[in-house]
């Protein structure tokens, strides 16, 4: 494809928007994703940009990452450029097709964007997607900035077509969620022709074909490594020290950006850096040459030692393997500064908290605020109803905002997407084996239910597992910022109509006989429904489904405003509301020993009126002040 690039003005974009522009500008025809922090903003930005430019792209949320990746992969079989976008744990879900597609001699360019979350900030693991690239034998680009990420999208597509292999772009959270000035527009490439040509040896992964393709894949790795050694100087380059270097640093991604700023700020120009933008397959000759020219070499990369691992001999370098770099957590400026201080013997590099400030914070009892469900969140009411209806129940939950139900003592297990249902089955099976019958009430969101809940539900119906599944339907994929899903039915591109998939109908179709829906804000009805559902599950020996429905507060639904107050005479300071309702708008004054409404956060949903066992929370008469 001919690259026609016209430089225009600069714009400030979120890293994810810059990546989205790269995807559109590189002539991608099919883009799919499942939302997940920190990758969620990419696909909506692709759709918006394609709409602005009037391009005929297909842009869709897949119901999960496996679906999204398989759709993109098959689209590339036709010669179209295609990409799938997900977060690092989403790639676990898409691992099955990713591993096998790696062996294919692809036709159109296929890009996988897998965003990592070192820290982690919003994930159940801080796994390194580059490891997955190594596992699958797939090349990986690791951007240090938003602008570089966008540029890499072009090269990843080109490399994919040149070698007929899926390529990975691995931005980390600091690239996805940076806001940076970048080139505003690049003239998009024109997509090539689309045609599927039948060829079972190419598109069918029978073992006989795999035995031929695997050695070819190995050869591709050799050839791509060679290409990374020689042709990608814009991503793999040395920032030399002034004079003889006291230290050499091999760095990739966000760690490169951070260490560069630290050294510059500290005026340490006696350190040279080898920046690597293609960590797999590692350009080993280039790295070994750098190592040979330095007495001391430090490796900085997130989150796993992927570059270190590819060295034929890493005993001479400092990194994660020998504990110089911490084995977990994000490489924040303070962490890297600490490592540098030790390696360079320069204590001035360490900042450290001021003792006076530390003491002040202790005296003022200021603690970091834990994430909490938003004021007015319908999940809070649902969790309260469940916990109060069956206080002795076990409550598996799932991935989404509602994992924060842990604050209300209404979440006992969370594993991954869909595991609320399968964990309920597992708990049921263990109890059944010893003749016990403790209630199990699981919670799952609408999007997560369709993502990976359905197989577990079918299994529970088939095998007769008795538990209550509460589906918290807030009409959006809330945690990741409010994306549509099958229960909503809308799609990303203008004029592209979807079809709503009915949750009740889906459950009945799976063979669930008890399916009821309640208004989540109605605590009395919710409590009664939970008890009834459990009675059904227990007596019939099968799962019962209860749908708690109320729109997410992020959708700003129209609803009655019910200002509330805490009657200071009636409040006995038992903290029941704090422990089991846990709303930012309802807080406890240690000084007075009583609860009160924090008007900074209260949204007057009125639900807490039904929470206090002493009737101390009541609707105020008249207007809010």
């Amino acid at each position, binding site marked *: 494809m001919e690259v026609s690039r016209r430089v225009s003005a600069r714009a400030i974009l979120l890293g994810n928007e810059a990546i989205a522009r790269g995807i559109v500008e590189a002539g991608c025809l099919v883009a799919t994703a499942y939302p997940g922090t920190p990758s969620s903003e990419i696909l909506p930005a692709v759709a918006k940009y394609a709409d602005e430019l009037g391009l005929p792209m297909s842009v869709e949320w897949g119901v999960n990452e496996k679906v999204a990746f398989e759709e993109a992969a098959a689209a590339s079989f036709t010669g179209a450029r295609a990409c799938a976008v997900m977060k690092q744990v989403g790639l676990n879900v898409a691992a099955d097709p990713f591993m096998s597609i790696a062996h294919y001699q692809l036709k159109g360019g296929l890009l996988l964007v897998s965003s990592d979350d070192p820290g982690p900030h919003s994930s159940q693991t801080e796994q390194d997607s580059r490891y997955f690239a190594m596992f699958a034998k797939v090349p990986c680009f690791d951007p240090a900035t938003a602008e570089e990420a966008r540029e890499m999208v072009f090269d990843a597509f080109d490399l994919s077509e040149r070698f007929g292999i899926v390529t990975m772009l691995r931005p980390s959270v600091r690239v996805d969620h*940076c806001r940076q*000035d970048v080139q505003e527009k690049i003239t998009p490439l024109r997509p090539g022709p689309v045609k599927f040509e039948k060829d079972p040896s190419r598109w069918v992964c029978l073992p006989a074909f795999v035995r031929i393709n695997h050695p070819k894949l190995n050869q591709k790795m050799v050839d791509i490594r060679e290409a990374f050694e020689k042709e990608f100087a814009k991503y793999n380059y040395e920032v030399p020290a002034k004079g003889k270097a006291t230290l050499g640093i091999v760095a990739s991604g966000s760690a490169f950006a951070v260490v560069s700023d630290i050294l510059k700020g500290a005026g340490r120009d006696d350190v040279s850096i080898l920046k690597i933008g293609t960590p797999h397959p590692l350009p080993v000759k280039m790295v070994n040459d750098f190592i040979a020219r330095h007495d001391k070499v430090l490796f900085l990369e997130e989150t796993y030692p992927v570059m270190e691992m590819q060295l034929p001999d890493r005993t001479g370098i400092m990194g994660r393997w020998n504990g110089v770099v911490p084995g977990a957590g994000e490489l924040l*400026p303070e962490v890297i500064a600490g490592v540098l201080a030790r390696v360079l013997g320069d204590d001035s590099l360490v900042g450290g908290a001021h003792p006076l400030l530390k003491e002040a914070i202790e005296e003022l009892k200021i603690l970091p605020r834990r994430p909490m469900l938003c004021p007015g969140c319908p999940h809070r009411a649902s969790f309260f109803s469940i916990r109060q209806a069956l206080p002795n129940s076990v409550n598996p939950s799932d991935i989404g905002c509602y*994992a924060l139900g842990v604050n209300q003592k209404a979440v006992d297990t969370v594993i991954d997407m869909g595991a609320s249902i399968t964990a309920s089955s597992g708990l049921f099976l263990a109890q059944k084996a010893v003749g016990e019958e403790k209630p199990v009430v699981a919670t799952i969101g609408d999007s997560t239910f369709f993502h990976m809940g359905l197989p577990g539900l079918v299994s529970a119906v088939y095998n007769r597992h008795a538990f209550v599944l509460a589906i918290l339907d807030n009409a959006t994929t809330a*945690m990741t910022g409010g994306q549509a899903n099958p229960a909503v039915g809308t799609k990303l591109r203008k004029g592209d109509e979807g079809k709503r998939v009915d949750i009740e109908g889906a459950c009945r179709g799976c063979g669930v006989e008890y399916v009821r829906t309640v208004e989540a804000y109605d605590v009395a009805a919710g409590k009664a429904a939970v008890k009834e559902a459990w009675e059904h599950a227990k007596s019939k020996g099968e799962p019962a489904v209860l749908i708690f429905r109320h729109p997410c507060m992020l959708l700003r639904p129209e609803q009655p405003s019910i200002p509330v107050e805490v009657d200071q005479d009636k409040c006995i300071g038992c903290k029941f509301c704090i422990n089991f309702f846990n709303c930012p708008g309802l807080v406890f004054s240690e000084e007075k020993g009583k609860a009160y409404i924090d*008007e900074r956060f209260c949204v007057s949903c009125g639900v807490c009126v039904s929470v206090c066992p002493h009737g101390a929370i009541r609707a105020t008469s008249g207007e809010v002040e």
Partner: protein
Amino acid sequence: MQYIIVGIGGQGILFAGKVLGAVALEKKQRVTGSEVHGMAQRGGSVISHFKTGDFISPLVRAGEADVLLAFDQNEGIRNLHFLREGGAFVVNVHDRSAFDNLKLKEFLEERRISLFPLEGYSLLKEHMGGNFLFLNVLLMGAMSGAGVGAPSLEDTAAAVKTLSPAKFEDANMKVLKLGYEAVVKK
């Protein structure tokens, strides 16, 4: 310039980074910053980093921020270690008594930190019918009022105008000025 903006998820702190970015772009400065999205954003502590000038990483290092803009005083105090010596602390105060803490006073003095407090919630109750959604614009006004190398009121106003819906323009301009004056006259 390096800024740290802190608050609680839901207070609208992402807007501050967008305004700073728009102002810097207008001045043809290079910018980079880091935001919080996802679970970390839900009602918990949130932090945005923002830098103008010749930087690669969007992250501000502890002890190097020129300005700390706090939508919540507790989050502000908890993140004071980000400020450089002589930096500016613009803070939305809901409980003045915290600032009587002697250790805190001593710390601010020793680090020569200029304190620009404003009682944002009271101001919005008094002037905006208690609509706390204007807190972000109010604090942007306060930051320009504080000076300290932050964008001028005019530049901030222009950026707020381009970044928010036209129907809020009058109210936004009123709130911006309110924040500016709350700090500048001190």
